């Protein structure tokens, strides 16, 4: 059963074509990553699915609803973490959760949610006293308090220090354990690799590749064999690393040489990403 189906989605702002024919499908319980540089069309795509924007063309189904006519039943089942939003500064973490819980028919227990996002110690702290990472956890907490089936996370860790990112990742993993479907946008490769079951790489309003992080790294790109000869770095790119490596080592053995700093490197997601999105993407 698909939580989200997108076919031929298009959206322009004036002359700018932000989304130019996007197709993808997200299964229930899946964590799906939209990966791409700034301006690739990720946020526009997500905001169409959240019901914020009208599409120019294409078919979209989110939990069986058309998000262009987002009724109450649709709102009850989605949770949203916006890329940027500043919530009220003068109320406490607990009050904020209680306020949002009140909007839903069947909210989760507020204390449980605060515990889940790791803010139990800050329960009675005013929002303005929280750190950036803690505020982001608050965003996630109020997105979860309605007990949604589908959670949208738009760049959930942008601007975090490494420790805060790790903590956020653990939390997002816990969403999978709860059985939630998650649509995550990010421009961090490692984030997509760590969290997503499948990744769609976006560039200039189109999806250039979809697959599991593993699939993306095992296709197309050559394996690199590197070593040093006569003080110079040599890089051999090949689709047949076993044969090439055998020839190279046989040759070196025959000459009685050592292949200095010999290294066989499989392409990383980063290599794939940079190839797909172009070096001048950022």
């Amino acid at each position, binding site marked *: 059963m698909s939580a989200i189906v997108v076919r031929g989605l298009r959206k322009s702002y004036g002359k700018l074509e932000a989304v130019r024919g996007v197709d993808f499908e997200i299964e229930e319980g899946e964590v799906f990553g939209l990966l791409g540089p700034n301006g690739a069309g990720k946020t526009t795509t997500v905001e169409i699915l*959240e019901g914020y924007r009208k599409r120019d063309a294409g078919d979209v189904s989110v939990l069986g609803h058309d998000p262009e006519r987002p009724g109450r039943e649709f709102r009850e089942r989605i949770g949203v973490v916006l890329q940027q939003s500043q919530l*009220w500064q003068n109320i406490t973490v607990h009050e904020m959760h209680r306020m949002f819980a009140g909007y839903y028919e069947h909210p989760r227990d507020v204390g449980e949610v605060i515990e889940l996002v790791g803010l139990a110690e800050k329960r009675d702290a005013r929002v303005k006293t929280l750190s950036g990472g803690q505020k982001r956890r608050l965003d996630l907490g109020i997105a979860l308090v309605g007990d949604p089936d589908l959670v949208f996370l738009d760049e959930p860790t942008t601007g975090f220090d490494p420790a805060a990112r790790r903590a956020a990742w653990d939390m997002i993993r816990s969403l999978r354990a709860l059985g939630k479907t998650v649509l995550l946008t990010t421009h961090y490769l490692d984030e997509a690799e760590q969290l997503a079951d499948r990744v769609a790489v976006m560039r200039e309003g189109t999806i250039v590749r979809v697959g599991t992080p593993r699939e993306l790294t095992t296709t197309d790109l050559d394996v690199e064999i590197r070593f040093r000869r006569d003080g110079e770095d040599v890089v051999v790119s090949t689709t047949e690393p076993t044969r090439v490596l055998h020839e190279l080592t046989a040759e070196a053995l025959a000459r009685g040489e050592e292949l200095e700093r010999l290294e066989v490197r499989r392409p990383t997601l980063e290599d794939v990403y940079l190839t797909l999105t172009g070096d001048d993407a950022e």
Partner: protein
Amino acid sequence: MSLRLFVHQLRSEQLLFWRSKEAALFIFIFPLLLFVLLGSVYNGTIYGVPAPQALLSGLIGYGCANTAFAGLAITLVIRREQAILKRLRATPLPASTYVAAMLVSTLVVFALQTAALFGLGRVLYGTPFPSAVGSLVLAVIVGSAAFAALGVATASLIRSGEGSSAVVNFILLPMAFLTGSFGPTRHYPSFLRAIGDVLPLKYFVDLINAIYLRGHGIWTKPFALCVLAAWGLGGLVVAVLKFRWEPREG
């Protein structure tokens, strides 16, 4: 509209208002402070009644514009620019419930302020409580509605959060001076009085003066009611046409 959601949101709005010290101070306390200050400056009689009573009447006008127009406009701009309105739209809270709760919350604050003005006047200056209470309540509701519509309209026209309080006060304070909220305007130059004569606050103050100072019913001032309603409708049209839920991009 679900009553449970409305009550929940009204309580939330009240919590947010009173918890924000700046808003509570500026919106709620400031008109009371002005009353105490002006009341100790003016002597004798104004409009044939003791000065503090006339000043109290004018300050109800200022309080209404301050709470429903300025307070609402600034709050809305800030919530829009910080994407709070956008975030709320993703919840099942209907927009109509949200707007209704915000308006009623504003009315609650203004009603409490008006009651505090009467209490303070009684204690400090021996001013009487109003006799035509029904008319007063009605006038307060009509005035709040008109100024709230103008507040939403103004919020829709203000583009950024930083400038909002400056812009709003640039409108509010001259309007209050020109329309007699801070004392009578009969000694003002005629062109200043002419400007005051087209502003909505002038007609709200006229209404309150008739009701509180002379004990007349609200229906004795049909013209003032009509002008106030016209301004309110004008505000409503702009608000409906121009209101945005989301911050400007970039």
